[in-house]
């Protein structure tokens, strides 16, 4: 049943008792042409584009828990393509273009809200870097604007734009097309669309081993038995290292916990996404009214999906330094997610050194916005056995070759990106 205002009205008459399942919950088959591990946005998108773009419909997505329960379901929902380095810029811009039409493509409202992403700039040196990045964006055909402090003060009066601030705001780089997307809707929308293409989405099915046959993938062991396949795609975010290890591969990745939180819901106070690299903070207001915010990692390897107070307190302190009027608002809930931090801060969307094995991962803080492009390119790479132009740079081998894509220039310290 297509979703629309008409189907909604029709179903209202029958008290919504006839809505079909958004996706089936099939028993796993013994074999699939392709298997994607991970029922997050990236895995589900991979499966969807395998079916949609490459006519590979005999696909299973194996998810150890409930679909969308990983980072897809716990991120701060910011989408943007305001990158400096070419490979990132082209990749994320491709993703942003896919977001623009995704609700229609999936027939599921993912609420891409192009409300703008404003990066605050706090010093002359910061300004140089921001303008350089903005210029790179423009030359790459991506929208960017530089706002003066006065323009920002007029637009977002809640921001402390005074010069007495600890890190005074001197301007900001705005990407007008940046914004937010409803996180859960992305998982559900892709799941429903993939399911409609015949993809089997199998929840509560953990991959516990990868079987190889003569250097090539032959299948996976799962908590629901062995399933054979010759094309295996890994899309498990914070668990990338564990899956790769099942095929004997070590990755340039560490798993770290990143916390986020929401305030109690309030009437609209903030109409755009505001971020600051200097105080390590980002914030937006959800459609339900909560302020959704986050900042830095907790800075230690973790698979625990829970963090500690110091990191949270610092996020809040940064929030109040920028928005002094938010002090009387309350934090409603905080949580953590496991980030797959790479050694250069950029992802790996590539074939791995085992035939039939690919991965999309290494997302660090920023993989939600990559979801459509990652799925699209991962599907391409799985189907064709070779990368597309847009993910050609995101190889695993780039580190050995010295072709790091190090946007922040931090170097091989995973948690510092």
């Amino acid at each position, binding site marked *: 049943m297509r979703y629309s205002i008409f189907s909604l009205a029709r179903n209202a008459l029958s008290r919504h008792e006839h809505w079909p399942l958004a996706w089936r919950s099939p028993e796993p088959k013994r074999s699939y042409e392709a298997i994607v591990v991970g029922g997050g946005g990236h895995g589900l998108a991979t499966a969807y584009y395998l079916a949609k773009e490459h006519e590979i419909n005999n696909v299973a997505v194996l998810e150890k828990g409930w679909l969308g329960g990983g980072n897809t379901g716990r991120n701060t929902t910011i989408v943007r393509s305001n990158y400096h380095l070419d490979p990132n810029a082209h990749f994320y811009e491709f993703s942003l273009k896919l977001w623009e039409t995704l609700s229609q493509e999936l027939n599921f409202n993912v609420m891409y809200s192009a409300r703008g992403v404003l990066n605050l700039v706090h010093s002359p040196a910061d300004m140089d870097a921001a303008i350089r990045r903005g210029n790179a964006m423009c030359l790459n055909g991506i929208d960017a604007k530089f706002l003066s402090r006065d323009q920002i003060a007029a637009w977002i009066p809640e921001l402390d734009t005074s010069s007495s601030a600890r890190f005074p705001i001197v301007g900001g780089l705005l990407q007008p097309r940046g914004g937010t997307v409803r996180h859960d809707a992305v998982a559900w929308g892709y799941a429903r669309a993939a399911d409609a293409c015949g993809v089997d989405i199998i929840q509560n099915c953990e991959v516990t081993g990868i079987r190889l046959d003569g250097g090539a993938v032959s299948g996976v062991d799962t908590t629901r038995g062995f399933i054979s396949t010759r094309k295996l795609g890994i899309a498990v975010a914070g*668990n990338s*290292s*564990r899956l790769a*290890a099942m095929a004997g591969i*070590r*990755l*340039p*990745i*560490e*798993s770290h916990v990143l916390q986020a939180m929401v305030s109690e819901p309030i009437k609209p106070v903030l109409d755009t996404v505001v971020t600051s690299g200097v105080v390590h903070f980002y914030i937006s207001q959800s459609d339900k009214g909560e302020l959704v915010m986050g900042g830095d990692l907790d*800075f*230690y*390897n*973790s*698979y*625990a999906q*829970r963090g*500690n*107070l*110091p990191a949270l307190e610092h996020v809040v302190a940064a929030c109040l330094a920028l928005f002094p009027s938010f002090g009387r608002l309350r934090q409603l809930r905080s949580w953590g997610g496991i980030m797959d931090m790479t*050694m250069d801060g950029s992802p790996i969307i590539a074939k791995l050194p085992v035939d039939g094995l690919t991965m999309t991962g290494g997302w660090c803080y920023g993989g939600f916005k990559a979801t459509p492009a990652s799925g699209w390119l991962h599907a391409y790479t799985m189907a064709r056995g070779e990368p597309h132009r847009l993910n050609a740079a995101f190889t695993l081998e780039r*580190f*050995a070759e010295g072709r790091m894509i190090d946007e922040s220039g931090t170097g*091989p*310290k*995973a*948690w510092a990106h």
Partner: protein
Amino acid sequence: MLLIPCPWCGSRNQVEFTYGGDATLKRPPPDAPVEAWYEFVYLRDNPCGPHDELWLHSAGCRRWLKVRRDTRTHDILASARPDQALPGGEP
């Protein structure tokens, strides 16, 4: 909030420390092949479970220490000086 047992100062709050990552990495000799250096600099076991890691007691005695911590639970299982083995050897 982690409570980290410094082998010298005693148990102290996480905020006194700076993280230093995987403690099991072995720095190759300078003339080792570039592959060995690539592995040392970039590749990580990234275990889900006990993880031997380095911390600097940066606001304390300014010594680096080894900590074995379970990355699933954040339980701290042991700590040691960098030149000492953690109890039970390598994980």
